[in-house]
């Protein structure tokens, strides 16, 4: 990369600070996004883990929902982890009353809390397609899964037969939390996607 790409981290609620640290470590310039004006000049945006109902509400009250959706449908690279994957999806399986319409950044439907409650949260090694150098350690916190996906969506990782990571064009989602480990390979993949060096 010639100039450090500017990657936004949606900073309304959740694990946004850890993502910003990870992005800086792979050579990106991370900036917090709290309002529509913060979307200017971004090469990509990370939608972090947190509570999807909370972030979904705050996206709307901050006036970010429509501008973000427009930017993403216009080709802005997006990386969604856990709640971020839920918000990036086209739809939810069995939505609750506070599950608002997601951004529809890629053609997947997602089931929230698919592994159960916190006592069922776990870590496990994953084989991730497109990430070289051995298994990636996945940290799953009340994690969702990808239940259905369009034919143009590529599933990149599985856990016990369930799809937990996917990609289409410049949009990358995973059910687990690479920002909670020191392994930066997935953040590096996303930054390369954002600058157009890593095409599907």
């Amino acid at each position, binding site marked *: 990369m010639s100039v450090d790409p500017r990657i936004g981290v949606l900073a309304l609620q959740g694990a946004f600070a850890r993502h910003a640290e990870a992005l800086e470590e792979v050579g990106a310039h991370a900036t917090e996004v709290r309002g529509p004006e913060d979307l200017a000049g971004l090469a990509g945006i990370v939608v972090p883990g947190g509570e999807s109902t*909370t972030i979904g509400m705050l996206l709307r009250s901050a006036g970010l929902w429509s501008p973000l959706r427009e930017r993403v449908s216009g080709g802005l690279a997006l990386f969604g982890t856990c709640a971020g994957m839920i918000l990036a999806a086209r739809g939810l399986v069995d939505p609750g009353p506070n599950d608002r319409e997601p951004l529809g950044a890629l053609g997947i439907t997602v089931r929230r809390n698919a592994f159960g409650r916190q006592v069922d949260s776990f870590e496990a090694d994953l084989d991730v397609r497109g990430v070289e150098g051995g298994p990636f350690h996945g940290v799953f916190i009340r994690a969702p899964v990808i239940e259905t996906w369009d034919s143009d969506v590529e599933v990149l990782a599985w856990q016990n037969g369930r799809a937990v990571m996917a990609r289409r064009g410049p949009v990358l989602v995973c059910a687990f939390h690479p920002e909670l480990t020191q392994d930066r390979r997935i953040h590096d993949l996303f930054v390369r996607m954002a600058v157009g060096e890593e095409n599907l």
Partner: protein
Amino acid sequence: MSEERGTGRVKRGLAEMLKGGVIMDVVTADHARIAEDAGACAVMALERVPADIRADGGVARMSDPVLIERIQAAVSIPVMAKCRIGHFAEAQVLEALRVDYIDESEVLTPADEANHIDKWAFTVPFVCGATNLGEALRRIGEGAAMIRSKGEAGSGNVVEAVRHLRSIVGDIRRLGTSDDAELMAAAKNHAAPFELVREIADTGRLPVPLFCAGGISTPADASLVMQLGAESCFVGSGIFKSGDPAKRARAIVEATTHYADPDVVLKVSRDLGEPMVGIDVTTLPESERLADRGW
């Protein structure tokens, strides 16, 4: 591939996901729905809010499981519940109930005056209150995966939470400027595990998230404690003891997210109705000061 549960990373991971959010005390499923609708990132399921526990007196215990189950059924966000300090059997019941976090809380009547729960023995994560850095590190040493200031629960008065936060954050900052030879004396003075003291001196932060609790009643209270270094807010009596809980809950959520933007805090502070009636903490007799429970 094989799955490992209840690790430190998995326990602290949920606390990471709750950052920048508001955890609200609720006593009914209706409260829980109002909280989730207002943007709470989690709820604390209780039989009575701290202000009522304070007013009622007597021994305050873990809630009836049926009350917690109703709240678990009502919302999709994490549900926390409280057990008494040192009452590991209550904690075992709450783990069997599959609550998402256990608060070993001074708001309930302590069950053990000498020992807190060995929290490493559980799969479910724990949050514990602290009034200073030493207390926080002792709880982390016992396995707590999140620390919150104690504040003075049920008082509607943020002064104690501010005292505790300033003490914890200030002592973390001071450890960062200590040289290696001073760290053992610091561990002695804080009555804290040496390895944790050294870790904080190296990293400049607690190894687990630091949240604020105790007396937060207004959006500006939330902004204040976030600016002082809290990473999230617990709001207890402040919401459901106020005139318009749904509106106040939503306003505190907005103020927690946009804590550094006074224009947003101003906007959401308008026309919230009656706040809860507060207590001047200095008038509380020592026997009624909840923050003095635990050590």
